[in-house]
């Protein structure tokens, strides 16, 4: 099998040379392009460097920035986005390396005779050598300017897209990959491509790389030790002190030799063979090794099957370092010595001396240099070489360093070798041979159609000018017009803007092209007229080989890119914009709700129009108590326990028909707490359920009414008051939610004792204040939300006893397991009983379940706890089912004796708002908390545990819509703990905000920061610990999110805030308003600065709103001109962008405009129409 690989296309772009001819001029004259970092690029970077220095943790206070010298490109900030199917914004957000690789590969394909059309769907491989280097990346740079672009910029900046984008754009189906072996990367990529072609992974391959030095700032600590002091690379010279930075890009196109010959390709050189190896375990990972380099050469020669004596030119890696050069020289000597004793027959040089070191890109640049040397048949002088390094004994070896340009005499085909070594030890070597084509093409006869195209009209003009110059310079002297026509057809004709010329020879072509420039496209007549017409109309281009002659690709001028600025400018106002001051004010995690005295209300009569309807339980004193107050002509409805939901529809109808203004729910008026669960059942079914039905019915009727929920000493006014009728306090939590869902029912909860004077009660019923009021005789108090900056841990130091038994309900839930773990870690020699509805699978199934990924958290936690030495038992029971819970608790007591502590963490989340809540679902949520806690107390009444922790919720203070049941159950827990304060058993309720990492809120996706910051697990567990070491009966656990956009909501509850909290809320609300205002002003200013021209309408008239919408779109896409009917998606928009574009449009025009609107409107004209509608609507409101 012929394993030769033909190199059929080349592109190169380095400082001073944008094509192979110019590149050869640099090499053949021994020139070096080292210079200071260009002024223009320096200016663009200075502020960024200052910014980096000023904002590093250890700021560097150096006013001057010193840049390295090197072989730098003039500009790296431009790109022809249209040629690569991008929009200007995308181009701007794309790393210059990506843009350069795309450009290099595009040009190499074109040179090889391939247009996008000819490539589409082909089995072509893309191989890129690249590494992200230390220091700044473009992504880092643009994200510093605008952190919000990160997501959008991903595809333009992650290395894999270097290869993938091109494969995607051109629909290439071969391997597409990026090789990172540091400085040998592109040569290793050549080796990979060769192998891929030989094993049949692809039929064509492009290999390339690019390198720029983003910010070549000189800094004593940032060098890696190979940099030349003055940027000049002096390989093999006595004065060599390192390598200089080089920039540029290069690419080659490879094809199996037989196929290339059959296709009539222009073959620059033949890749005979190659090898890749690694240094292995050398002294240090960065040290090169002459033995493995010698092995590499021997392997490559074997692979190429050539006699090393026939190699006349050696392109060395040659980094010009004191360590590297002698090692490389030694390796070459040793390898040649295995085959020949001849001396001084092989010239050695390196292109790094001419154009600097392109790191990952250097391999392919060396390869292209060797190609140029072979093609020209001349040995070029080594640049920057004056005095040989005395450590390199050239005279005794096969190599010599050429100092002048001279012809390369050779008996057989000229051969060359190319080396590249990567930092870290991966080495590559390739063996090339010249290709001489004996045949001259048969001259063609007759006229042919020469077609050219470009992505923009400007490119097309430049291209035609390029052809004229090329012809005038003799570039087509040896080419046949038929081959020119074929080459342009298959490689240069698939762009949008097109021209065609009829020509019978090159002179003819020149005339035709010159005329095109002056007069534009003329109609083409004759036999080719139809083809020309179809082509010019944008029809598909036929890339089939000619029928009448062998196909032959000839060398033609390369594409003329229409490049525009594609660079994010670093704002020189950064100092002003950057607020280096930080606000590290700390806020406590723990809070409490206190009952604070509040002045009694003035006593007034019955207001005009007031009409009271009271619902009472005839088995209580409620009616008599209400009778002490003058409530006007109040109606009293005596409700027993046998009501239905429909009963309350009748109540609501009455409210509507009789214009009732105040409904008093006075059913929960029992004087003493229930002592048995059956009584709890009865009371909740009567009191809480009636309030549930009543609220629903009133809402469904759409009434506006004051709802007074009257309870009798249900709320524990003083800590430790065991006479509180705690179960009736669930109504407090419930009542807090009604107004959150339906603001036309204003709720006030009056918790009274019977010593409240009648007139005071009347004043309360009719007052305009809402919320919870405790009335005890003449005293009045209400809830106030306060900070608890420090939890007094004046309780027991240790609350877990050796050998103790601790029960956790909800024990296999995430919070339960976390508490279990924290207990076991504090004291491993305890027994933990985890109670949960779901329980635990049998132990013999655990391994299988773990393997299947089911119930893993539960199983691994239990195993971890057992590994600590803790005894763990899991019991299955529903905490909301008193019988089942009682059986479980009794069982625990039988098995383990006394329960020493209980954590009641069981809970079900609330679901729907009251209007849509089903009674069964409502009850279930309440029961787990309320009935569960009651039963736990009841069964441990005779032998109280050391502690009981009730997991309550933020919902009992600041509930959200849909949490009526949850708030009711949790308020009960808070109140229960309060009534049991000071007893032998430490009972504490913890009102949790959402936990951030685990638990119910995570399961329901509500674990974000809202009014409160979501609670990290470790902080939550610390609160549990602190609470248990304190004597508190309650802690509200959650840090207020003062900087959040929802903080204002805290004031919308009928729970007064302490003065310090209120002041902070006030301050942060103002600060937020200012931030939002500034942000929107910034957006408006940015949009206003966008220059964009509208087009697409015949009369050229556009509305102001169309203009401003266009500015918003141009800001997103970067186009200088936009069609008023252009589609958002066709402009390059995607759903990610849509959100930000819609938000810009909304802010700019001061209307509510969201992503759904944008996705429906899609064009500037439709968006503008919609925005105008919205603006008029907004005006109507104002």
């Amino acid at each position, binding site marked *: 099998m012929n394993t030769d690989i033909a190199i059929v296309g080349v592109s190169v772009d380095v400082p001073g040379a944008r094509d192979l001819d110019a590149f050869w001029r640099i090499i053949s004259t021994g020139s070096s392009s080292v210079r200071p970092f260009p002024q223009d690029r320096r200016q663009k970077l200075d502020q960024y460097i200052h910014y980096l220095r000023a904002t590093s943790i250890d700021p560097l206070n150096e006013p001057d920035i010193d840049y390295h010298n090197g072989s730098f490109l003039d500009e790296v900030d431009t790109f022809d986005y249209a040629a690569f199917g991008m929009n200007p914004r995308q181009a701007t957000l794309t790393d210059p390396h990506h843009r350069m690789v795309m450009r290099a590969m595009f040009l190499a394909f074109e040179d090889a005779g391939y247009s996008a059309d000819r490539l589409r769907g082909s089995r072509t491989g893309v191989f890129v050598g690249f590494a992200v280097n230390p220091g700044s990346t473009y992504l880092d740079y643009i994200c510093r300017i605008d952190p919000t672009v990160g997501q959008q910029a991903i595809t333009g900046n992650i290395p894999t897209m270097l290869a993938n984008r091109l494969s995607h754009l051109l629909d290439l189906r071969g391997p597409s990959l990026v090789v990172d072996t540091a400085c040998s990367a592109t040569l290793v990529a050549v080796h990979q491509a060769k192998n891929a072609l030989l094993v049949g992974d692809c039929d064509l391959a492009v290999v390339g790389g690019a390198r720029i030095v983003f910010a070549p700032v000189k800094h004593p600590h940032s060098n890696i030790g190979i940099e030349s002091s003055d940027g000049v690379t002096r390989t093999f010279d006595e004065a060599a002190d390192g390598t200089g930075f080089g920039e540029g890009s290069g690419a080659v196109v490879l094809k199996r030799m037989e196929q290339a010959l059959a296709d009539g390709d222009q073959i620059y050189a033949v890749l005979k063979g190659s090898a890749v190896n690694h240094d292995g375990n050398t002294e240090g990972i960065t040290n090169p090794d002459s033995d493995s380099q010698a092995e590499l050469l021997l392997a490559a020669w074997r692979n190429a099957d050539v006699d090393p004596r026939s190699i006349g030119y050696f392109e060395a890696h040659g980094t010009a370092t004191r360590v590297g050069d002698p090692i490389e020289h030694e390796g070459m000597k040793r390898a040649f010595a295995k085959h020949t004793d001849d001396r001084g027959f092989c010239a050695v040089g390196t292109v790094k001396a001419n154009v600097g070191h392109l790191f990952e890109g250097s391999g392919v640049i060396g390869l292209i240099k060797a190609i140029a040397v072979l093609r020209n048949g001349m040995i070029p002088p080594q640049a920057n070489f004056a005095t040989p390094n005395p450590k390199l004994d050239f005279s005794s070896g096969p190599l010599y360093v050429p100092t002048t340009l001279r012809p390369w005499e050779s008996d057989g085909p000229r051969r060359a070798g190319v080396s590249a070594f990567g930092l870290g030890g991966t080495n590559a070597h390739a063996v090339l041979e010249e290709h001489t084509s004996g045949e001259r093409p048969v001259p063609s006869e007759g006229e042919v159609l020469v077609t050219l195209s470009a992505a923009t009209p400007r490119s097309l003009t430049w291209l035609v000018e390029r052809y004229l110059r090329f012809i005038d310079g003799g570039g087509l002297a040896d080419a046949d017009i038929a081959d020119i026509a074929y080459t342009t057809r298959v490689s240069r004709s698939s762009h949008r803007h097109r021209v065609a010329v009829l020509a019978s020879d090159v002179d003819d072509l020149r005339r035709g092209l010159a005329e095109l420039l002056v007069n534009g496209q003329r109609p083409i007549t004759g036999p080719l007229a139809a083809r020309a017409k179809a082509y010019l109309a944008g029809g598909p281009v036929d890339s089939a080989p000619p029928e009448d002659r062998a196909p032959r690709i000839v060398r033609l001028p390369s594409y003329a890119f229409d490049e525009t600025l594609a660079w994010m400018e670093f704002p020189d106002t950064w100092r002003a914009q950057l607020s280096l001051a930080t606000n590290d004010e700390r806020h406590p995690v723990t809070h409490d709700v206190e009952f604070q005295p509040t002045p009694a209300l003035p006593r007034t009569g019955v207001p005009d129009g007031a009409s009271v309807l009271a619902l009472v339980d005839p088995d209580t004193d409620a009616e008599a108590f209400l009778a002490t107050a003058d409530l006007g002509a109040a109606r009293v409805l005596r409700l027993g326990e046998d009501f239905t939901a429909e009963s309350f529809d009748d109540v609501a109808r009455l409210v509507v028909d009789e214009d009732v203004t105040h409904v008093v729910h006075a059913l929960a008026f029992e004087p003493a707490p229930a002592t048995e669960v059956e009584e709890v059942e009865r009371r909740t079914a009567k009191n809480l359920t009636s309030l549930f039905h009543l609220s629903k019915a009133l809402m469904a009727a759409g009434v*506006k009414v004051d709802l007074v929920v009257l309870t009798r000493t249900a709320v524990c006014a003083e800590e430790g008051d065991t006479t509180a009728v705690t179960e009736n306090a669930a109504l407090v939590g419930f009542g807090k939610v009604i107004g959150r*869902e*339906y603001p*036309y029912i204003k709720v006030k909860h009056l918790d009274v004792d019977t010593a409240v004077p009648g007139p005071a009660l009347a004043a309360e019923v009719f007052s305009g204040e809402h919320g919870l009021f405790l009335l005890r005789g003449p005293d009045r108090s209400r809830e106030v939300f306060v900070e608890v900056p420090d939890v007094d841990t004046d309780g027991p130091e240790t609350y877990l006893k050796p050998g103790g038994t601790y029960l956790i309900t909800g024990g296999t839930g995430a919070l339960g397991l976390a508490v279990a773990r924290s207990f076991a870690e504090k004291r491993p020699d305890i027994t933990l009983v985890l109670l949960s509805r779901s329980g635990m699978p049998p132990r013999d199934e655990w391994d299988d379940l773990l393997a299947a990924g089911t119930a893993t958290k539960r199983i691994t936690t239990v195993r971890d706890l057992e590994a600590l030495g803790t005894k763990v038992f899991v019991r299955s029971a529903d905490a909301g089912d008193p019988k089942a819970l009682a059986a479980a608790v009794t069982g625990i007591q039988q098995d383990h004796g006394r329960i020493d502590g209980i954590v009641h963490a069981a809970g079900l989340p609330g679901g729907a708002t009251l209007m849509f809540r089903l009674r069964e679902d409502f009850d279930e949520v309440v029961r787990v908390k309320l009935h569960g806690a009651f039963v736990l107390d009841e069964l441990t009444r005779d032998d109280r545990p050391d502690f009981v922790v009730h997991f309550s919720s933020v919902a009992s203070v600041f509930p959200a819509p849909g949490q009526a049941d949850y708030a009711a159950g949790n308020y009960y827990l808070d109140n229960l703990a309060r009534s049991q304060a000071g007893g032998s058993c430490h009972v504490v309720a913890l009102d949790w905000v959402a936990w951030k990492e685990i638990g119910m809120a995570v399961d329901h996706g509500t674990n974000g920061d809202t009014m409160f910051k979501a609670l990290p697990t470790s902080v939550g567990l610390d609160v549990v610990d602190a609470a248990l070491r304190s004597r508190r009966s309650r802690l509200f656990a959650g840090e207020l999110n003062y900087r959040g956009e929802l903080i204002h909501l805290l004031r919308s509850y009928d729970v007064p805030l302490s003065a310090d909290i209120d002041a902070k809320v006030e301050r942060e609300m103002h600060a937020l308003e200012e931030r939002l205002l500034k942000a929107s002003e910034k957006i408006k200013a940015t949009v206003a600065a966008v220059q964009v021209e509208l087009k697409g309408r015949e009369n050229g008239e556009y509305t102001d709103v169309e203009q401003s919408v266009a500015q918003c779109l141009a800001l997103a896409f970067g186009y200088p001109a936009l069609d008023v009917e252009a589609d958002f998606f066709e402009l390059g928009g995607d759903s990610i962008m849509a959100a930000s574009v819609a938000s810009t449009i909304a802010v700019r025009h001061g209307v509510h405009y969201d992503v759904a609107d944008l996705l429906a409107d899609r064009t500037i004209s439709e968006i503008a*129409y919609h925005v105008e*509608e919205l603006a008029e*609507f907004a005006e109507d409101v104002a």
Partner: protein
Amino acid sequence: MRCLLFPGQGVQRKGMGAELFARFPDATALADEVLGYSIEELCVRDPQRRLRDTRYAQPAVFFVNALMGLAVETGHDFYAGHSLGEYNALVAAGVLDLEAALRLVRRRAELMSEITGGGMSAVQGVPVAFVRRALIETGLTGVFVANLNADTQTTIAGDRTEVAVAAKAIAALPGARVVPINVSGPFHTPLMAPAEARFREVLAGFEFRPARVPVVSGVTGEVFDGPDLLARQLSSPVEWVRAVTTLRAAGVTAFDEVNGTTLGSLAGKIA
């Protein structure tokens, strides 16, 4: 049992029905003649952007609905339509022929478009009772509930300025979202009374045959029982929730729909 639903104004999109006009050349020619312009150009290309205008939007939606109705499988046990869509339901049930219905729709659209200065907004996320209460609390007299589309989807309509003010008040309800709808008139409110009176005269000149298949009316939420409902429709709210509830009670378990999926999705939001 199955019911076929026809949507009303609001579903119009440039390009709608594009593949149907060629399939039904006779009906299309008839429409062109009745309307005096090319229905296909209006629906597919709309170069003058007339689909934004009630006068054109109604015949366009009606006609595309009708062609789609012809194109789908028949054999439904009930028909119903939302507002304008009722005309399609009546055609499908044999109460009106296509030409008569098209003439009525054209006239209806003209009369409706003559009442200007109106506005409409969709309210989502809260029950209609909440919306009614919020409207009462605003104290405004020129804004009404116009469509009861689903349990928590309602539209309000009325005087343009008052609708805007009411919308702001309703938007303050927890969970409520209010989105303005682009129509010119206070459709389905008492402010349409002048159009109703004139349309009643128009209806008198048309013949209504008995329905082959029952049609459930969005005016009453009951089975269609006479042409006057079409006059009352202009100033009465669309009782879509009631209509769907009636259909379900009659045994309908599946709703099919032409020209979009709006109504089916609304039905899914009716308990």
